[in-house]
């Protein structure tokens, strides 16, 4: 067979040479003139040209919209640029040296001003009667939502193991569980928001709906805190208990965690089902013959094989979890008790909550976020490498 193939290839080459004698002649004429120079392999040149040509759009897109944007964000974070600035962005960055130290607005800002602002900006809340560090609270919210990651992983592992059993219709379940993943998140959020209303279906099912309302899962008003304040004791000497402003956010966060777990379950299940189908069946059987029970096989054989999948899932979930934005904002609007860190970028960088949309402040927040995500990812890889030793 191989001989035949090479033969036919050789024939093809020969026939082509016969078909185009003129081209060969031209090529031969051209060759002696170029001989003094370094000979160029035409095929390799073609490969290199076409190779670059084919991935040029992707390279341009990535460099332009990601790397250039990143570098510009980094540079901008040391300046004082606003979104509506009359100086175009590129021109501003090329003359950046002028803008770093001296400032157009107040004259009091130095290069690290926005970074100091990010870490030290405090806000006075009149209702809760506290002054809080804004970045700290938003980071706390972001991390709080990550409770959903282990919950989702355990649940999806459980369902994936169920689906991997030798039963009929396992594929149908896989599709049905994946439905929430393809649904528009804004539709899901609005549906959940009404389902978790005081008189909504969840309170009906749990028996928490009453004549004059019901349990407030989602509420940005002061009522929840007041209800909880009376519950926890108004006479308490502990400020934290007497004025439980923090209660306002807890249940909204809980609803958002439930929703995120519900929405993300299907994707993780598919990941795990794919992983489970790749587990070595022979090892499993050997363990079974050696007298291991199902539980032991799962922990000693299946889990080590699944480890790369689980690790990948944790890394991507943490990266995604750090960037949570739309869910809390759509569920109850911007609030210091529920919003994630990214909403600070939106509020100060684009929306202009400080009076003007300070693009520089937004990029400073973004740079801090990028560093945090990078460090977290590195930390996980470090844990992973330690685990392997």
């Amino acid at each position, binding site marked *: 067979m191989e001989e035949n193939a090479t033969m036919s290839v050789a024939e*093809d080459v020969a026939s082509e040479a016969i078909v185009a004698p003129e081209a060969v002649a031209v090529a031969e004429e051209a060759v002696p003139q170029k001989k003094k120079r370094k000979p160029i392999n035409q095929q*390799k040149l073609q*490969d*290199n040209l*076409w*190779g*670059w040509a084919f*991935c040029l*759009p*992707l390279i*341009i*897109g990535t460099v332009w*919209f990601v*790397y250039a*944007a990143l570098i*510009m*964000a980094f540079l*901008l974070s040391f300046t004082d640029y606003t979104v509506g600035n009359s100086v175009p*962005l590129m021109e501003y960055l090329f003359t950046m040296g002028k803008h770093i130290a001296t400032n157009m607005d107040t004259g009091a800002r130095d290069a690290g001003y926005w970074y100091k602002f990010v870490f030290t900006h405090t806000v006075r809340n009149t209702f809760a009667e506290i002054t809080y560090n804004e970045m700290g609270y938003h980071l706390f919210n972001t991390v709080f939502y990550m409770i959903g990651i282990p919950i989702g992983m355990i649940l999806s592992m459980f*369902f994936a193991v169920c689906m991997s*059993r030798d*039963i009929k219709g396992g594929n149908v*379940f896989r*599709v049905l*569980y*994946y*439905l929430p993943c*393809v649904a*528009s998140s804004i*539709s899901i959020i*609005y*549906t959940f928001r009404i*389902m978790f*209303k*005081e*008189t909504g*279906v969840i309170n*009906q*099912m749990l028996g928490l709906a009453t004549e004059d309302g019901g349990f407030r899962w989602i509420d940005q008003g002061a009522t929840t805190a007041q209800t909880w304040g009376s519950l926890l004791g108004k006479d308490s000497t502990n400020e934290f208990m007497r004025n439980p402003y923090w209660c306002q956010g807890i249940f909204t966060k809980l609803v958002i965690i439930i929703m995120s777990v*519900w929405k*993300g379950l*299907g*994707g*993780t299940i*598919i*990941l795990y089902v*794919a992983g489970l189908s790749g587990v070595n069946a022979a090892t499993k059987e050997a363990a079974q013959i050696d007298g291991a029970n199902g539980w032991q096989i799962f922990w000693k054989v299946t889990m080590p094989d699944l480890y790369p999948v689980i690790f*990948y899932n944790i890394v991507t979930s943490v990266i995604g979890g*750090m960037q949570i*934005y739309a869910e809390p904002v*759509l569920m109850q609007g911007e609030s210091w008790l529920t919003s994630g860190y990214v909403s600070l*970028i939106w509020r100060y*960088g*684009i929306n202009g909550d400080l009076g003007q949309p300070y*693009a520089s402040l*937004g*990029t400073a927040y*973004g740079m801090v*976020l990028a560093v945090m995500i*990078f460090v977290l990812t590195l930390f996980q890889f470090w844990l992973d490498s330690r685990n392997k030793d």
Partner: protein
Amino acid sequence: MEEMENMQVVEPVEEVDLTPGSASKEQIIKHYSPFRYGVGAVLAFFGFSSKTHRASKKRAKLVMDIATYVILLFGTFIMVYPFWWMIAGSFAFTGQSGTTDMFNELVWWPSSMTTQNGVGLFYNYQWLFTSGFKGGSNGMPKGYSYWRAILNNLIYSIVPVVVGVITSASAAFSFAKIQWIGRNQVFFFLLAAIMVPGPSIMVTQYVMYDQMNWRTNGLALIIPGLFGSIMTAFFIRQFLFGLPTSIVEAAKIDGAGYFRIFCGFILPLAMPAIMAQGLLSFMGCWNNYMGSFIMVPQSSPWINLPHAMYVLANVNTENQAPIIAASVLCVLPVLILFAAFQKLIIGSLMLTGSKE
């Protein structure tokens, strides 16, 4: 003393082989207790072996299968119920000035349906078409309508996805099948871009699009997608590695240029991967709320359907049944698409081991 005697009496019995198969019922009851024997019988019925009974493997499997189905069906109920609620809620009647607790009794079906209030069954949907999304009212931008929302969504999700998947596929072809200097370095340089979190570069992108005037004519959501995405290219590249390189070489020897090889061989052969990635990107773009919310100003008729839903829900806080109807209309096309291509999509997800 008595206890000692008893133990001495029992001890000889211990030497009898008590494994469930070989010992008689009397022997087992005598050694253990009738109660334990009964418990063992019940356990064996449910497929669990104990010291008194050995359950048959068939029974064990049957019981486990039933348990699996019960668990999976319960999970399916939780996964599907909100969708059912959405559909049922879109037929609830809240009127133009309805009360906020209009979904009061809605567990399975709304207590106050549209037809019971003298309007048609699809009243909420009609309201969306006639006045809900109408430009100028409900906070909608001028010149807006429901069809405009659908058209915008289609433009945003077809143009960048079709072009982007082809550019991604061409890059994947270049990385997988053409030998050029530095291709691995370039590939990892591009792959490293997925490490950059989107929100970090959000503000610069906003300023860039703003100064190029892409925000008010929808280009901000179209042009970046045309250049392809590195993840799509990555997955298609993985797929192309599975194809024999000899196809490309044979075609080259036959005199086909790389462009012809790409159009004539690679695109048709990699179609399953391209289709799957394209469908997933389509769904992502159709549901892209963040892009429109951040990049497109609310006064522009280029806002997409999810963004328009957000505007409508903020203005129309009392009468929320039409918003649920809009949710259904937003979810339905994607669900239909997913149902039609679920084998391809799930297969691709299983193969690539990605979540999106």
